[in-house]
């Protein structure tokens, strides 16, 4: 209290400066700069930038390749998220009890999530091998004919979706377990006294009280899908014939293979807006969650 306030201010800013410098240079400045660059034509190997207004966006929104990338990204999200969420909820319900071997199960389900995505992608390339792959042997057991997985446009995205479900499952299980454990026990007891059976408990107690958790997982999963890149770059390079070119891979191609920095920035801005809207939705919804408590 006896300290002079301006000395405190000075100390506070001294503490903040390292963090502010890094975030300023590599987060705040790039957002502004990406917005600016998106208004310029700048092929970095072919001379200086030229201001072209919104022309990059016009090209973008009339580009079949861009819409294919958007479509692929949505397909990836729609294909992997519901499956992953249903499986995760099911597993979390099974795990949410005193069990022997709980630590083992948790380790097994979570291991894919923390493992290097590059390493995991290489392993799945081998699993999807069209001639001697494990996957073809597995589906052969139920009588399905061998597929060409990553080598064919019809199945390439499906291959990435299966990998995506396998890799993201553990994360969703952990979050669902957290959600289940935050449901007060007395609600179950009250419902049981009212004569509810197990299915009714699930339908009328667990499921509604898990809505915020489900919504959280959904948004995070959509955001993650829109950011996926590594498995595409390692396994398919966006092919065959563009069937796995997702939006970040398209950005990468434009900016770092064609060196079209202005156009690439316009793609980045679209990505930014999509994720911003999703995040705002999430905050809006989580704000309502207080009603339940």
């Amino acid at each position, binding site marked *: 209290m006896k300290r002079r306030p301006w000395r405190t201010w000075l100390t*506070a*800013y001294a*503490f903040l400066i*390292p*963090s*502010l*410098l*890094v*975030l300023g*240079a*590599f987060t*705040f400045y*790039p*957002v502004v*700069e990406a917005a600016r*660059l998106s208004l310029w034509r700048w092929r970095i190997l072919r001379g200086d930038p030229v201001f072209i207004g919104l022309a990059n966006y016009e090209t973008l929104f009339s580009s079949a390749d861009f819409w294919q990338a958007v479509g692929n990204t949505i397909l990836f999200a729609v294909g992997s998220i519901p499956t992953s969420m249903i499986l995760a909820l099911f*597993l979390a319900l*099974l795990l949410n009890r005193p*069990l022997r*071997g709980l630590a*083992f199960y*948790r*380790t*097994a*389900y*979570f*291991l894919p999530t*923390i*493992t*290097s*995505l*590059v*390493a*995991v992608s*290489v*392993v*799945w*390339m*081998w699993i999807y091998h069209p001639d*001697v792959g*494990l996957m073809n042997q597995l589906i052969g057991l139920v009588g399905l004919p061998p597929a060409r997985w990553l080598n064919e446009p019809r199945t390439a995205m499906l291959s990435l979706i299966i990998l995506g479900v*396998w890799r993201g499952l*553990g*994360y969703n299980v*952990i979050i669902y377990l957290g959600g289940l454990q935050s449901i007060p026990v007395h609600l179950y007891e009250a419902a049981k006294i009212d004569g509810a059976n197990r299915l009714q408990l699930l339908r009328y107690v667990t499921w509604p009280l898990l809505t915020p958790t489900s919504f*959280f997982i959904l948004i995070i999963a959509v*955001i*993650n899908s*829109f*950011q996926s890149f590594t498995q595409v*770059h*390692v396994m398919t390079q966006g092919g065959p014939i563009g069937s796995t070119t997702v939006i970040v891979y398209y950005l990468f191609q434009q*900016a*770092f293979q064609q060196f079209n920095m202005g156009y*690439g920035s316009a793609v*980045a*801005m679209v*990505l930014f807006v999509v*994720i*911003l809207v999703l995040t705002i939705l999430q905050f809006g919804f989580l704000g309502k969650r207080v009603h339940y408590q």
Partner: protein
Amino acid sequence: MTRKLESPFVHLLLLVGAIAMLMPFAWMVSTSLKAQNEVFSYPPQWIPSQLLWSNYAQAWAAAPFGRYFINSGIVALAVTFLDLVTSALAAFAFGRMQFPLRNALFTLYLASMMIPHQMTIIPAFLLLKNFGDISPALGLDSYFALVAPFAASAFGVFMLRQSFMQIPNELEDAAVLDGCGRLGFLVRMVLPLSRPALATLALFAFQANWNSYLWPLIVTNSDQMRTVQIGLRYFVGQEGSSQWGLLMAAAVFVSLPVVVLYLFVQRQFTQGIASTGLKQ
């Protein structure tokens, strides 16, 4: 009462799931120990007729993996250390000090967590390209380029601030009476008391950086600067689609550091994720 009846069934379901989750890992290790002629036998064999450990030595020598490991080690440890330092300092200022614009700046930090890393890569790349004109050590294809963008994080500040704010003010008053400055109080009292939060942040930072791909892919272009993930990707390109034994051996040693770390401290990992909801 019904628990005893259903328990074997529950275990059966969980076990089937666990086997499905672990199968790719088992397949990776199995293939990594096979001779080339066994790799392509169909139907696939799970147990190699002899364990060919030399695949590991051969894969290690087929590309400069030693160099990649040193690079990844230096970069991941530097990022972890710097992220902890910058986040702790900023979190202390935001959580325990009064200064003008505090709320505005903190809102800016929170908002920045919504920014996808992928949208910042073009300007960040161009910025480092310009730094390179000042000195090559600050430009593309340098340790600086790999470390600097991750030397601070809004997430770290947010997470540590929560922990720092729980420390009672009386403790700070007493420390000040003892002639301990703010930095002394932070180092001697706050940090030791926040060890769990610091450990969780360190784990996340190390794991995320060891596994990171897009940024090192963009900013490195020499073998001297490549990290393990990029090295593994180039190794796949180099070995084509034939040397699967060697590729699996390389996949094993590239993923091993984080997997081992996880097996030792998995509680910290999963609790950290459950409490922060941090996405991968």
